[in-house]
């Protein structure tokens, strides 16, 4: 366990502090901000000649709910995917709970255990029952017994309101139900951080709220959430923090209130005028 230090002063703009200290605190504080759990410093990513991330720096603290918004193609998904090593980054540094990503595969194992992900298209394992979808990783990766994994899975299904569907298969569920299962599946690994990549974008409008409802409840439990979303209502009401991406960079890193009432950049204003 790391030493208890004062809460790091929140920075409102993306810092470029290269020598990131392991700033940590066990005290949530009034803004429920805990110790630093994700540190991204000057992260770059190229796809061939295309420069998808151009020096992205941000720190995320335990318990923080961050909404990430921005135009399509601005690098939001790419950023999330570098955070759990689904994509490698080719410049800068990412630390998850102090473990530096990208050097060896051992780091990747650590990171994958601590960072869960929920995808736009749910990506449930279609050949496995709902229950088995959730128990697979805890049994294989965490070494839980089947009984322990099933107990955990059923209580998570209860939490997302789908206990009765445990024996069904993904195709038999609606999109909203599938996404709630995907959330339960990610939670079953007891991650410290949960990444959401447009979790409601593939859903029919009438199913969006059931998923957002689960996410709202989750936000209150103190898990760290990074949510790429087009749901401005969610960003405004649930997020503690708002990050605006544009052309592979973080253009604004501020509070949702500040962003929606007085966006600092022309690009943010243009974006807001389009989504509203």
């Amino acid at each position: 366990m790391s030493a208890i230090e004062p809460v790091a002063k929140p920075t409102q703009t993306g810092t470029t502090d290269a020598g990131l200290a392991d700033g940590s605190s066990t005290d949530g504080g009034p803004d429920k901000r805990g110790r630093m759990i994700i540190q991204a410093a000057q992260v770059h990513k190229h796809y061939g000649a295309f420069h998808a991330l151009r020096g992205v720096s941000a720190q995320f603290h335990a318990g923080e709910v961050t909404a990430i918004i921005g135009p399509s193609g601005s690098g939001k998904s790419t950023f999330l995917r570098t955070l759990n090593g689904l994509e490698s980054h080719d410049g800068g540094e990412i630390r998850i709970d102090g473990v530096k990503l990208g050097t060896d595969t051992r780091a990747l194992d650590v990171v994958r255990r601590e960072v869960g992900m929920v995808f736009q298209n749910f990506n449930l394992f279609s050949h496995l029952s709902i229950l088995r979808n959730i128990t697979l990783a805890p049994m294989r990766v965490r070494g839980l017994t089947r009984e322990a994994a099933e107990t955990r899975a059923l209580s998570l299904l209860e939490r997302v309101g789908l206990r009765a569907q445990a024996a069904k298969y993904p195709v038999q569920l609606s999109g909203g139900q599938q996404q709630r299962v995907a959330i339960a599946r990610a939670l079953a690994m007891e991650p410290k951080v949960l990444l959401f990549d447009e979790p409601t974008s593939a859903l029919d409008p009438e199913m969006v709220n059931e998923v957002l409802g689960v996410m709202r409840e989750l936000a209150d439990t103190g898990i760290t959430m990074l949510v790429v979303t087009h749901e401005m209502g969610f960003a405004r009401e649930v997020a503690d923090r708002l990050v605006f991406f544009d052309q592979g960079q973080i253009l604004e890193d501020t509070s949702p209130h500040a962003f929606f009432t007085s966006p600092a950049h022309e690009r943010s204003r243009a974006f807001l005028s389009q989504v509203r």
Partner: protein
Amino acid sequence: MNWTRRHPVWVMTAAMLGLLLFLWGMALPLSLAPAPIGPAATQFAEGTRVTVALTVVAGVIGTVLGFLAGVGRLSKVRAVRWLSSFYVWLIRGTPLLLQILFVWLVVPTLLPGGIVLSDFACAVTALALNAGAYNAECVRAGILAVPPGQVEAARALGLSPLQIFQDIVFPQSLRVALPGLANNLASLVKDSSLAYAISVVELTMVGYRVQAESYQPVPVFLTSAVVYLILTTAFTTLTGALEQQMDRGTRRSEATA
């Protein structure tokens, strides 16, 4: 079909038992048939057993080869990819009869002295190599059909590459590959007839001999054809039921336990 759908395990068991019963007991009803079939009943039964043995042994080895080559064609290692592609290209681009003759005539000269390949072993080798190349294509298609998002989700959950293959990719690709693999197995029943060219006494060879002695090709070849039809139907039923079994839970309407 509907019944097959609901009780695939029973259908599989029934097809398997039916096939065994047929192999074991077919000499009896055949011996009651008029000449030239009746007197040659045991020959027909023996030939059928050889045909089934060729099919099953070459089918099993061919499935393993198909998986190795199918996975190999998608390997990250260039040499493995190249080798697998070469194998598939070579086998699919040449006639099976040529492959059988090659194994029979050329392979023994390459083997160290003392090792003797029986005609049966030569036929099995060639048939297995042949089936493997065709199976590789089915396996490759099956693997490519697994949604990449599911592999990604498994990676994000921390599963190792081996676990991902075994728990996610393999079972799902099998479901897609199975109809093709089943088709290849049914073809193998018929393709095994080419083993007659290297004097393996299988069903076609028996038929050829019996008609040569009796000068009555029509009843003899009719009998062979019926036996082949029974065999292919049994194999198709078997693999069809297996598909149904694998498919459980993929249909929206079905209430699964």
